[in-house]
């Protein structure tokens, strides 16, 4: 540690550049991870909020809520207890004259079931009649207010916003909660249609009818349009960044080590043990990574504060810890690459032999 710190202190420009590289890579990792988590969260926010474990869909719907229709006959034998709720879903465009149109997901829910009852409102109240809706709080950011009357999918009928719900997004779109009756009307379904799905909070819930099939919620989430592809893309980018960070750290340390071979030979000639030199190289790498990562965390935190809420970025402690540990591991692995050269340094080289 002594040698590592003294060298960094003395060679400020050289090590400053390495810290800059580590900072930039860490910052990019934090940024991409935060975006990945933010987008994933906007895909699943509502589902996570419901604490859903299982979903029953039409078995021919390809695990897609928007394609699923369950008839009254399908649901005839289904057990709908306090942990279950039926929902109807439809992609809509909500609009009010003079305000921005918003692409949203309409969810029809029943007042006596948990999805309606557990709604987490940040303002207003729950919708009680077929003419009322509660909407995701992002509507507020776009200028919508309580009492605003909106049209859905260009219908003439107007619905009053009576509440703003917290974290009510599914598939990156804000949710408009209304009644099942409104959903049936908007969806223009046949009279025998009861819902699009059953959501259950119980992990052992199972209802398989002729046309209905129960899926784990994870299967449903992974089948959300674009969800898996988006996550894989981010994971690939983050993975590559870790590999790049490993290469950058290893290459820099290798070059620096090669430049210091004469110093190492001199120190070995003096009797300084190899383990001291190896320890200095590893601790130097750890110090550089820690400084770079700490700067990246501070800047990321400031970025998170500065960015508008429309940017789906979520910088969580988990990202901070896992990203930092990942960088640290890469730094340590990178520093191990030149170790062999240090261990093999010939002290006789110190006197030109």
């Amino acid at each position, binding site marked *: 540690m*002594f*040698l590592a710190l*003294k*060298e960094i*202190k*003395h*060679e400020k420009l050289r090590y400053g550049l390495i810290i800059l590289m580590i900072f930039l890579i860490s910052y990019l990792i934090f940024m991409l991870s935060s975006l990945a988590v933010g987008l994933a969260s906007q895909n699943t926010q509502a589902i996570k909020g419901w604490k859903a474990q299982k979903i029953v869909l039409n078995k021919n719907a390809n695990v897609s809520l928007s394609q699923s229709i369950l008839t009254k006959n399908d649901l005839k034998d289904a057990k709908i207890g306090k942990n279950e709720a039926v929902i109807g879903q439809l992609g809509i465009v909500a609009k009010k004259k003079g305000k921005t149109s918003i692409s949203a997901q309409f969810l029809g829910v029943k007042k006596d079931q948990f999805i309606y009852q557990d709604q987490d409102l940040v303002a207003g109240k729950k919708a009680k009649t077929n003419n009322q809706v509660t909407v995701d709080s992002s509507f507020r950011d776009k200028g919508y207010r309580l009492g605003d009357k909106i049209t859905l999918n260009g219908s003439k009928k107007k619905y009053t916003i009576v509440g703003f719900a917290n974290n009510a997004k599914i598939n990156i779109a804000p949710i408009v909660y209304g009644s099942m009756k409104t959903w049936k009307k908007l969806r223009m379904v046949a009279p025998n249609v009861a819902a699009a799905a059953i959501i259950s909070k119980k992990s052992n819930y199972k209802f398989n009818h002729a046309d209905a099939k129960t899926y784990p919620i994870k299967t449903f989430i992974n089948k959300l349009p674009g969800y898996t592809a988006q996550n894989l893309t981010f994971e690939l980018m983050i993975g590559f960044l870790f590999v790049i960070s490993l290469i950058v750290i290893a290459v820099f340390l290798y070059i620096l080590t090669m430049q210091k071979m*004469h*110093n190492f030979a*001199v*120190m*070995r*000639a*003096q*009797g*300084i*043990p*190899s383990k*001291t030199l190896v320890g200095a190289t590893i601790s130097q790498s750890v110090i550089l990574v820690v400084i770079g990562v700490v700067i990246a965390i501070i800047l990321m935190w400031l970025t998170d504060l500065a960015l508008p809420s429309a940017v789906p970025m979520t910088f969580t402690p988990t990202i901070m810890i896992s990203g930092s540990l990942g960088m640290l591991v890469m730094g340590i692995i990178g520093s191990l690459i030149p170790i062999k050269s240090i261990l093999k340094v*010939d*002290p*006789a080289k*110190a*006197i*030109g*032999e």
Partner: protein
Amino acid sequence: MTVIELKDVKKVYGKGEAQVVALNDINFQADKGEVVLIMGPSGAGKSTFLTIAGSLQKPTSGEILINGQDISHFSAKQSGELRLNKIGFVLQAYNLVPFLNVKEQFTLIDKVKKQNNLSKEKLQGLLKQLGIEKLLKKYPNELSGGQQQRVAIATALYANPDILLADEPTASLDTQNVEEVGQLFKDLAKKRDKAVILVTHDPRLEKYADHIYEMMDGQMTQKK
């Protein structure tokens, strides 16, 4: 008292037609309190002698005795410990770590050798004797050649070794500095009871030597 002795030491590099005999049946000894000069032209084997006497390399055959103990078969770790405790090196390019200031050069030794280093008072006395007591905050690149030389000597002596091995210690010094360094080595040998072995081709150091050996084509003969 003999602190270092080489008996029939041979060092051969390469094999077959490319074989080079760098040291050929070298017999040498140095006592505490003596300045010994190893002289000879470039390529005579002086540096090889230094690396073998200083346990930086192993001989092909023969014995090297330090305080009576044969070190010719020491492992790399044992050799390192021996150098740290018993042998001080003053190298041609000066054995200073470029990113440590003068004070930190001593701290580095303290970090790896926690006992038997010079006390603060003795170090202060040594620094004063070498005329570098005001250079403690300076980095090697802020020192002149002569000052670096003196700092290197102080660093080599800080671990309180029995033997001081110096490789061309006057290579970059003018005559006045050569006189000072020569006298300094003599004082170190006499007053601090060290065996000082100087590998050099500088005849200006001869007058400070108790013994002079000459090397030629890997063979050593005693001149004085």
